[in-house]
């Protein structure tokens, strides 16, 4: 048998305890919550789909290796080159703020290979494509560093990257700051479809 204890908040708690939502109220609150949950879960997919359909395509040179994630499975870890970035951030090191959110603009070489051009404190005003990143004491942490693949092909894909270190690319679609990796290639072959 439970026993009821009295505290200084008990009179207030008495009043709240008396409020018991009816079935319809509970249903309404739950439906609102469920809509919010579904909406916020689907929203990143909608933005990504929009970027895939109407975003500008960029081809970045990269290399990769093969770790695993307990939730999302096997992936190829890749690192995009940020040594080309011209830092335009106004970092006040005296405040110990060696890290901040930044916006990387994207340029293209005459050969059509994309690279990160400038790091800006705000999104570019001219509407140019950019990627949101985190500046950390001289390094740039990008949101795209993993290419998830079927567990059956991950080890072979890694070997393919080691065998062709200078011929690996990722394709990325970018639209208003939303970036989606649409494919990872060894030469002209999409890594998911390579027959190992």
């Amino acid at each position, binding site marked *: 048998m439970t026993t009821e204890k009295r505290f200084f908040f008990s009179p207030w708690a008495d009043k709240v305890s008396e409020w018991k939502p009816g*079935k319809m109220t509970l249903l309404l609150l739950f439906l609102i919550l*469920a809509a919010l949950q579904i909406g916020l879960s689907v929203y990143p997919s909608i933005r990504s789909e929009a970027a895939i359909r109407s975003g500008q395509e960029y081809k970045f040179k990269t290399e990769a290796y093969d770790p695993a994630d307990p939730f999302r499975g096997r992936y190829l870890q890749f690192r995009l080159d940020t040594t080309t970035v011209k830092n335009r951030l106004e970092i006040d090191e005296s405040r110990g703020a060696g890290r901040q959110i930044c916006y990387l603009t994207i340029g293209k070489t005459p050969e059509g290979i994309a690279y990160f051009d400038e790091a800006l404190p705000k999104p570019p005003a001219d509407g140019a494509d950019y990627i949101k990143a985190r500046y950390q004491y001289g390094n740039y942490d990008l949101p*795209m560093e993993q290419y*998830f693949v079927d567990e059956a092909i991950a080890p072979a894909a890694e070997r393919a990257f080691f065998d062709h270190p200078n011929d690996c690319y990722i394709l990325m679609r970018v639209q208003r700051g939303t970036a989606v990796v649409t494919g990872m290639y060894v030469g002209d072959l999409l890594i998911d479809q390579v027959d190992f």
Partner: protein
Amino acid sequence: MTEEKHLQWLNRQMQTWQSQGLVDPATLARLQAYYRLRAQDTKRMPVLSFALVIIGTVLVLLGAILILAKNWSSMPRLLRVFCSLVPLLTGIGLGLYTILREKGQLWREISALVVSIGLLTAMAITGQVYHVISDPAHLFLGTALLSLPLVYLFSADLTALVYLVLVSIYLAVAAIQQSLSLGGILLAGILLIGALKPWLVLQLHQGKLQGQTLWLNLALGLTGLVWFFSMLPYWVPWQEFLYLYFLGLILADAYYYADPQDSQLGSWPLSQEGSEHHTLSLLGKLSLYFLIYIFSFRGLWLYQAQSSLRPFTYGILFVLFAGMALLIYMLYKQKKLQQPDLMESAVSGVLPVVKWFLPLLPPVLMLLLQLMPDRDTASLLAVICFNLLFFGIGLRMLLRGINQNHLGTANLGLFFLVLIIGTRFLDMDFSFLVRGLVFVALGLGFLFTNLWMVRKSREKAEENPAEPIDPAAPKGGASL
């Protein structure tokens, strides 16, 4: 007919009684409250059945996560997005079924749990499908915030636990990534942990947080600890704050759960044992023992001596000291907190206000030692104090365990003694000569104490040959 339907029928009958003037509204309210409480009691499923259902649900959810993690890259992208939503949609479906069919607590727990895990899965798999991983801290924070309303709507204990785990991960990741400032982590901890507080208070008020749900308190204490540690890189006087945090757990346990009739509850670490079911207090006590052991190392104090305190820290500490002293005073007055017996014997006859302040003595001592200009001497004094304190705790526990014939307490005391003696024997921060002299002095002290006790016991026996032997007398020294 189920219990809930019985209750509905009874409620309808009660409305009729009131309309017929058979009962007055006050009596009706009391009757309703009584049957509501009874229904809550009887609704509890057998623990084993409840555990099996929960374990089964968790296994199914983990299996679903692994199946999705396999990455079905041959499937169309949008189909994979839909698959990632299946656990969430299932949970929402279960929730709707639970509400519409007015199912009991088990259904509420399961549907809320499935929704929480479904949210985590959906957000994680979206990153997999589009190969873009946003800040991991946001993944856990987002899931936690979207799960929290379920705790309130369904009064779901397990979802509250999931929420605390997610918040802990978020705070830890934010600290590792240093993505938040000290103020940010402080505020995030207060808001996120505090968001569960009204629900906990209500549960407590309704007498639901008893027995099997006390693990939630343990989770709450640990989440607070993660929060604390996530702020450590920014803080200099972490010793005082950590001590106060653990002391706060003990005081909170005493405040909420101690019964003045029960002499073992809400006690100070050096006092009575046997209150293991008070999870908050147990966590606080064990952590304090560990903390005092850590403080017995000289290297830590020498390292700490290189840093200095910021002025505003004094203000924060002063407010915390004052608040805790007030709470301790209040708990003593309500007989919810016991005096540490080792310390009590040391200050018996002294002003009561000194007694009330005793639990705060170690952090105040730490602060004073940190402020001493001669850091080398301060570190030595600190080490002596905390070694003696830890040694005293072990000795007191051992003696009490023997006196009360409580093997667990005696063994824990013995373990503490062996630990501190062994540690100092191997401690390279002190010279061999100093350690040797201290060990010899301690050993002689024990031997002479024992000799004195044996002689006194003999004298007493000669003076009163008919008097039976006191069973509560210390037995440790009788063999010499």
